[in-house]
Structure formats: C-alpha cells, structure tokens
C-alpha cells in the first residue's frame, strides 16, 4: 500500500520509493531507506503524514507519501 494509506498506529516497512533524485536524496538523508521500519504516528486528511523512524518523528508531505510504497511489518 501507499504510505498515505497506512492507518495510524500501523507498523510498516518501506518497500520502494519512487521519485526524482532530489526527493529520493531528501527522504534517504532523513532516514527513510528501503527496508526501514516506520510507525505511523498520525495520518490525517490535508496534513503531512507523521511517522516515527530511527527514533525520530518525521513529517512527510501527503502527496509525496503516494510514492512511498510500504508493506505491513510485524
């Protein structure tokens, strides 16, 4: 599923991220690498999605979350 569709409280793993080199560079530098586990802290309409990753709370633009594919992690 897309990260933008991940429900609040879910624990997901990043499967693949698509986008421009700039976008990929940005998400990578902030710690969102393929395989990395995220906890979805908040996912509300018209707000950036808020996840916890590598012990940090990270906000990601909703539109951009469409290009981050995640799968459920246990």
């Amino acid at each position, binding site marked *: 599923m897309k990260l933008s569709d991940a429900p609040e*409280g879910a*624990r997901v*793993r990043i499967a693949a*991220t698509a986008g*421009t*080199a*700039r*976008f*990929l*560079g*940005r*998400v*990578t*530098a*902030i*710690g*969102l*690498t*393929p*395989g*990395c*586990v995220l*906890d979805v*802290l*908040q996912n*509300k309409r*018209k*707000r*950036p999605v*808020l996840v*916890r*990753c*590598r*012990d*940090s*709370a*990270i*906000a*990601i*633009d*909703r*539109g*951009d979350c469409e290009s981050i594919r995640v799968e459920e*992690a*246990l």
Partner: protein
Amino acid sequence: MSCDQCDGCAAGAGAGGSAASGAGAAAGGASAARAPGTRRIALLGQPNSGKSTLFNGLTGARQHVGNWPGKTVERKTGTFQHGGRAYEMVDLPGSYALSAMSPEEEVTRGFLAQGGLDAVLVLADASQLERSLYMLADFAGISCPAVLVLNLMDVAEGQGKRIDAAAIERRLGVPVVPLVAADRTRYDALYQALERACDERAVIDPAALERAMAQRFGSTWDAVAAQLPEEGIGPHSRFWLAAKLIEGDGPARELVQQHVDAAANAALDKALRGVKDDIQNAGAARFAWVEQLIAGAVEREGEAAGGREANAASAAGGREAASTASTGRAKAASPLSRFDRLATGSRLSKPLAVGMILLGFVLAFVPAIPIMMVGGMISSLGQEAAFALSGADIPDVVGSFLSGVVCNSLCFGTMMVGYVFGINLVFGLYEESGYMARISYVFDHAMSRFGLQGKSLMPFLMCFGCTMGGVSGSRVIDSWGQRMLTVMMAWAIPCGSTWGVVPVLAVAFFGMGAPLVIVGIFCVCILLMWAVGRLFGPRLVKEGERAGLVMELPPYHRPRLGNVLHGAALKSRQMFVRAIRVVAIFAFAIWALTYTSTGSVEGSALYALGTAIEPITQFFGMGWQTFTAWLCALVLKESALGVLSGLFAGGATPNAAVVTAVTGGVAVAGNIGEIMAQAISAPEALAFIFAFTFNMPCAASVSATWGEVHSTKWTVITAAFYIASSLILGCIVFHVASLFF
C-alpha cells in the same frame, strides 16, 4: 580550484586514511609544518542539531554574517581564542546530507572541497542519534580531521538514553565529544577534542563504511572504485567519490571526469549504467554503517519490551530488521504525546498555532518596550538639545540636523533592536522547545501553494503588528530563498502604523463606506502578495527545490533561557550595527528635503520639488501635500498624519513632524480628516490611502530586511518594487475613483 592548502590537507589525510588512527596521521600533520597561526575549522550538521547554538557559544560576539559569494546562502564566520591559539570558524549551512541538491549543500560541498581546514566539527543530535549521524556518514571519506560532537545530551538523558561516546570514538578513529551546546560553561572537553583533532589530524576511518558499500553494490562497487585514482582527488577519497558516483551525483562525476583519462571515463560510464536505486541503496549502506557504529553504545532505560519486538522483527525480515535490532531496541512506537496530538493533529491545531504566534508577538513586547522607550528618549534628548542649541545662537540647521538625523537614526535603530531582541527571544524559545516545527507542519499544506513553508505564516501574522517584527521573525525559515520570498511578500501586509492613519482618512472621506476601503485594502494586499509570489517566487525558490515537506519534528524539551537570551542579544547587536547605516541614509535624505530655515514649509527643497513635479504626482493621484506625506512615510509611517496635519491645518512643517513623530511632539489636528476633506478630492484621498498603505514600509523595515537577508540587491529590488507598485496603485485608484466621485 585546488590550492596548495588543499594538497596539504590531502597529504595529511592520505596518511590518516592508511594509518587509520592516531599516530600515522599525527606524523603526517606535523610534517606538513603548518604555521602556528590561526586554525581554520568548520561546523557541519543537520538542521536542529544545535549548530547555531554551538557557533554562538564558541564565537560569541566575534561573528561576521554575510552571504556566500555568488550564492543566496547565509555565510557565518567567527573567531575565538583557546589555549593561546586563535581559531577561525565557518558555520556551514545546515542540510541533511552532502548531496549537492540544494544551494546550501552546494556551498558546503564547495567549501569542503577546497580543503585547508584544520578540523571539521560534525554535529549530531544525541536524542536522535541514528538518524542525525547520516551527515557524518556522508562526510566520512572527505579527508579532513574531524570531531564528532554529540549535542543535546541533556535531551537524550531526559529520554533515558545513555550514550557511550568512548565506544563510538574507538570505532570511528576521531574524537567524539558529548556536549550540551547551550551550556557554555562546559565546553572543556570540546576544546580538548578540538586541539587533539588539529594536532593529531586523525580522519574518520572509512574502512567499515567502504565494506558496507561494497557489500551492497558488489561488483559494481569494485568496477567503479578501480577506475578512480587511489589517492582520491583533493580532499575527496576514492571511497567517497565512488559512493557519490554510484548515487549519480553530477558534480562528483564532473570532478572525476576531469581527473581520469578517457578510457577510465568510458569504463566508469559502463559500470555506472548498471546501478539502480543508487541514492537509496547508498543511503541504506550509510545507515547500516551508522547502526554498526552505535551498536551497543546507546542504552535506553526500559529496554526489555522494545528488545522483544525488535527481535521479532529481525526474525521476520532481512538485513534492515536485523540492524534495527542492533540499535533501535527502543523501536517500540512511542506514540505522540497528548499535547502533540492537539498541536499537530486536531482541529484545534491551526487556531492553536495562530494563537501561539500572536501570543509570542505580544510577549515579544515585554522586553521590547523598555528598549523602545530608550529609543524614544534618544529622540526627545535630540529635540531638547536642538532647542538648547537654538537658544545658544548656534544656527538652527545644526540642531535640526542633530535631532532630525543623528538622534532620530539612533532612535529608530534602537527601536528596531527592541523588536529584533523581543522577537528573537520569544521565537527562539519556541524554536528551541520544538514547537516551531509544529507550526511549520500544520501550515505546510497552505503555504506550499506559494512555494513557501509552514513557518512563513509566522512573519506574515507578525507583519500586521510591525513589518520589522515580521522581518526579524523570518529568521526561523531555514532556506534563504524562501526567507527572502516570505519577507518580500510580507512587506505587502499593512502594519499597525498604517491602521493608525487609514481609518481616520477613510471615515472622513467615505463615512459609511469606510469599511469598504478596508476590504479593498485586504483584497489588494492578497493580490500584491500573489503578484510577488508569481513574479519573484520562481527566481527565489527554484521549481526543483520546491520539494514537498520532509522534515523531522524534534522532541520537545525545555529551552535554556540563558542560551536563547545570548542568541537574541548577539542578533540584536549585529542588526543594530548594520541597520543604523540604512536608517541614517533615509533619515538624512528626508531631513535634507524637508529642512527649512524659515519655519515655513515653502522654504524646503521638498516643497520646491513637490510643487514642481505636481503635474507628475497628480498623475499618480497625489497633490504636493499628499505626495510629501507619502514621501515622509518612507522614513516612518507614523509621521504621515502629523505631516498632513501640518500641511493642511497649518503649524508644524513636515520636517518637524518627521523629527518628532516618535515622541508625538507634533499635535495632529483632531479634525484632520474633515480639514482634508475640504481641501482635496475623494479620489485623491483614496489614491493616497492605497499608495501610502502599500508603499515600502519604513526605513527601519528596509534596514531590518537588509540585515536579515544579507543581500543589498534583493533589498533594493524589494524596495523598488513596492515604491513602484505603490505609485501604480495610486494611479489606478485615482483614475478609477475619478469615474465615480
């Protein structure tokens, strides 16, 4: 591009790289026989890692702030002394990595490429260690002595984390210092580490990182590395260049292209063709290294539960999960605090953010008002002095100059400092506590339409009070382009002083129609902001840089008042020194134009000019009186009513009105509105209202802008834009209104 310093650095680094630690590198550094002069160091770190705090803490008032040559990126340098040595420090612009994808990163890359540095202090946020060490991982492989500074240790401890800096130091091969940058009394370990880095010249041992890369990219890695010069290029090691090439980094490819032969270039192109997902995999390799680096070195209270979950995760999935288990035992989701739910997720979060901004603006006046009162006193003193001088048979012009230019400039400068100090203090506290990032989060969606970030809302709101306040509030916006665009758009917002003038005139001329005038002003304000965004946005914030929001929300923590006070005081001092020049130029120009020795307005240059060019100004909807008031408002908006009062009701000259505007020395005729209504037409009044409202705000705002954005060019462009649009607006309003009235 390369220089002898650079070679020196590369040579020292080569020794460090091969010896991997300590002694060999020390010998290399010593043999380079660097003059025992000033040591050059740089500060590198991600946003929110406390870079500015450390920079302020180390250099204090010995700072110079400007822009990087040819770049719209702020350049901060400073000096300090320690152990009988002079240090010169450059604060490299904050960015999340060294990928050359933003102007900030380009500057940092370019600077590090020059070499010649004695040490780089790499900052990481100890409370989010794994994530914030990415900068270190991206820096590793640049052959320059380094110190890893684990800042915000107090926050990490507050989270129940214990960090074994010594263990990290053993793995890294360079000094690692735990630090609370906000506590300037405990810098000893940092100074020692810095001295050690400069003396021993140890560089980060990239062997483990190289293994992580080689493991991930397999034969491609070997194929790429094989074509690169073994000694690297300048301060860039072979390993670092190989990683950048695999990431598809343009500047690195160019650099390599120039340094290897055609056959090697062809082989590189071939090898690189096969790489996919390059940035992400290189990033994952860096994080894998970071995880190894801090494995077992970060302990967290109440580990047990997290450990169990992490183990489950590692059983479930591959490499990343396993590495997660190594470091992120605390991966048990710590959900948002109740306050954060309110501040970021609820329906109340927007009103809360607006309320907090307005509250902050009000609170900023607590320290600002006493300072501004001092400013007012300077102006009063000037008037007293001028009065005394005129009694002592000294030509009137001397006293007038003293009070009108010298004392008024000091007065405006001091008042501006009041704002700058108050705003920097309050919003510095907001920022340090972590709340500012939440404001950005909540309003990001709305502001991104203008190419701005959520934080831009804050300067906008503050400009309703005072443009200077908004301009100094723009400091929290980390990208220069967005900051400049925010300031430029914010100038269109009518400030508090405007509201002291506009309603008086609107009611006198339009009675019940006055609210319509106010509505019109708001419409024009939005229109003007939109126009600025359209006209200048693409130049200031390049399309490609308008990447959507990807930011961290730093953990809340109690800010240290002393530290924020220190920062605000430093900023105020810098602003005063810069601003006073601009203010003085404006004050002098208007004084010279309005000065009259006869005491009647007819003797002034402005009268001669205003009446001479009245046919022209009338085209813009203003007669010589309203034009005079418009011009005087360039120095100080508050002066407009006083000037109009003097011109229409008799009494004080514009010069006196401007000189005493701050202290209210010139009485504004109570019925100035009615008097004017008899003297000028409604279209002219309306034209003046619009031209006055949307003119360049005031001299102090211009100087605040200049001080804040460090670009004379863009300050002039902004001022010119507003003066021109004010006149055009006046023209349009006058001619349209003439059709109706």
